[in-house]
């Protein structure tokens, strides 16, 4: 029977090996454990045989087991080295493009995830047309409450207008709504904000109606109702085949004639659906809102977002009205991006040289294909960078949905400008530090010379292409005889320096140095 001291020692040694095995990469762990466990048996057999417990023997076995940690660490380190990007990829143009592509994917994914950005992007292409005004009674203190009577609207429409070439009227009522297909037993009527509106409303607003019904004639005289995008998503789970369904709106019925994008959200009144009716029905109720489209003359008179309009009544009395512009107060995200991009390009020469530093090339080296390759790489970097700037600035500006539209626009403008400016600076600096032959980034900077000897000798930084093609000389203090960086092409005799990296110089046309 094994004495308890020996049993404890065995457990201790096995525990040490188990602990060490955790450091070994999973793929090698089983075999590693097998080998060490087997060796432990033999070590115990030699140093601490069963029944002859000695502290010295156990200490030798412990020392053997402790060596397993070094072995495990070696395997772990070696595994990391083999997983590290290969030396051919490090600093290469491919790595740079892959990095930018990954950044673009991350920024785009974030833009898809953030609800504020999603909403803003979906809204971007859908805005109401220009030259629209909301006409309100000047006496009304609240823009969001209806103040125009149907008879006023009828009078304006019938009269020839100088400043307006189209009018539409709508009034909002809360009405119970039920789907016809839903059985009465499970029927749950909910109240929607229904806008009884002129039939020409969406044509006047310039908003496209989505998923329009194909054959409106089959429904007879049932009026059409246009759902708001929000209600469509909420009640119909964004079903694109919603057109043609019949709804019970209050006492009457209406067929769904399409969905209107949320671009209509600038209009006053909380509207869930727009019931398009002839004027006789629309104007049968109380006060409502009037949207008017300005003529060229009318636009020239819109000197502010709100202008005072004088109405001449048939009895020659004057009424005071307000014309409130419905044009968006903030430019679209594309307009902001383009503006900030132009600003950044204009500001770029102020923070870095726009030269690519391609100088003193021998004609043989400056092969056309290589030049083309360099330009393609530069274009690819810029092409990847612009969408990164676009999406990252949107992420920053619209991540916080509590911000007002103007604040978000400001954040977008500033972030686009800043990111764009410094990204373009990085693009140029990166391009200047890439070997013209292989586009690998030069590395191993070495300072050469002393600043105090600038007038007698050269001083600056020397960088090396690890492919062994070139040396880059960057002057520490630009002088009239050495103002910009210079490339020095290395000949094949320098190959021995780079042989270990597996990237010896190809036999190419030679200019310049031989090693001394």
């Amino acid at each position: 029977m094994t004495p308890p001291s020996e049993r404890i020692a065995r457990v201790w040694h096995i525990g040490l090996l188990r602990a060490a095995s955790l450091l070994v990469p999973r793929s090698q762990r089983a075999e590693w454990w097998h080998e060490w466990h087997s060796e432990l048996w033999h070590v115990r057999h030699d140093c601490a045989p069963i029944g002859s417990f000695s502290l010295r023997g156990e200490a030798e076995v412990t020392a053997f087991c402790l060596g397993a940690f070094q072995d495990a660490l070696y395997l772990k380190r070696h595994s990391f080295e083999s997983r590290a990007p290969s030396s051919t990829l490090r600093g290469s143009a491919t790595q740079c493009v892959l990095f930018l592509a990954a950044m673009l994917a991350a920024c785009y994914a974030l833009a898809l995830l953030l609800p504020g950005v999603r909403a803003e992007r979906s809204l971007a292409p859908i805005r109401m047309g220009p030259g629209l005004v909301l006409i309100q009674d000047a006496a009304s203190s609240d823009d969001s409450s209806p103040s125009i009577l149907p008879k006023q609207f009828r009078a304006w429409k019938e009269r020839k207008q100088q400043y307006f070439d189209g009018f539409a009227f709508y009034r909002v009522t809360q009405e119970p709504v039920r789907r016809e297909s839903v059985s009465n037993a499970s029927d749950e009527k909910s109240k929607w904000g229904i806008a009884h509106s002129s039939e020409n409303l969406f044509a006047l607003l310039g908003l496209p109606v989505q998923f329009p019904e194909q054959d409106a004639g089959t429904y007879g005289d049932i009026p059409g109702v246009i759902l708001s995008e929000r209600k469509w998503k909420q009640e119909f789970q964004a079903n694109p085949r919603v057109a043609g369904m019949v709804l019970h709106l209050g006492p009457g019925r209406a067929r769904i004639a399409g969905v209107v994008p949320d671009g209509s959200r600038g209009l006053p009144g909380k509207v869930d659906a727009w019931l398009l009716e002839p004027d006789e029905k629309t104007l049968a109720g109380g006060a409502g809102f009037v949207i008017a489209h300005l003529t060229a003359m009318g636009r020239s008179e819109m000197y502010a977002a709100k202008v005072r309009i004088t109405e001449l009544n048939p009895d020659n009395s004057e009424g005071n009205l307000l014309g409130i512009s419905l044009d968006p107060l903030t430019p679209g995200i594309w307009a902001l991006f383009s503006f900030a991009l132009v600003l950044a390009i204009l500001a770029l020469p102020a923070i870095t040289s726009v030269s690519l530093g391609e100088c003193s090339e021998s004609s043989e080296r400056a092969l056309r294909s290589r030049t083309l390759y360099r330009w393609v790489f530069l274009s690819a970097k810029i092409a990847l960078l612009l969408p990164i700037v676009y999406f990252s600035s949107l992420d920053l500006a619209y991540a916080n949905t509590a911000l007002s539209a103007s604040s978000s626009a400001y954040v977008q403008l500033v972030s686009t400008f800043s990111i764009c400016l410094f990204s373009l600076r990085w693009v140029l600096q990166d391009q200047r530090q890439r070997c013209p032959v292989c586009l690998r980034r030069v590395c191993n900077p070495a300072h050469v010379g002393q600043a105090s000897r600038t007038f007698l000798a050269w001083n600056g930084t020397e960088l090396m292409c690890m492919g062994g093609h070139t040396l880059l000389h960057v002057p520490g203090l630009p002088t009239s005889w050495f103002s910009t960086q210079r490339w020095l092409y290395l000949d094949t005799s320098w190959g021995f320096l780079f042989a270990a990296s597996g990237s010896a110089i190809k036999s190419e046309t030679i200019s310049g140095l031989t090693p001394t």
Partner: protein
Amino acid sequence: MAREPRFVEAKLSHTAALILQALDAGFIYGFSIMEMAGLPSGTVYPAMRRLERDELIRSQWERQSIADAEQRPPRKYYKLTPAGRATLEASRKRYPLLERLIPSEEAKPV
């Protein structure tokens, strides 16, 4: 693709040369090499991993039936490759005492 074996004598450390010599002398598993070279396990096993990675030695598990017959766990045996033998020859020129430290005739029968 197999890596090209390294024949570069200058890169072989004294420890590695000692392990190659021990293997050549017939000490073909980790613990016996430790005992013969007088090196700790934390030095010998990582060195053998490097030599195996560089294809100077290769390993093979003992057959289970042999181990079962002797009532012990199977061992992992190591063997010189032709590249390893060539490297060892070069190392012997560099370290003339290598053969005297571990003479081939001391090898234990396996």
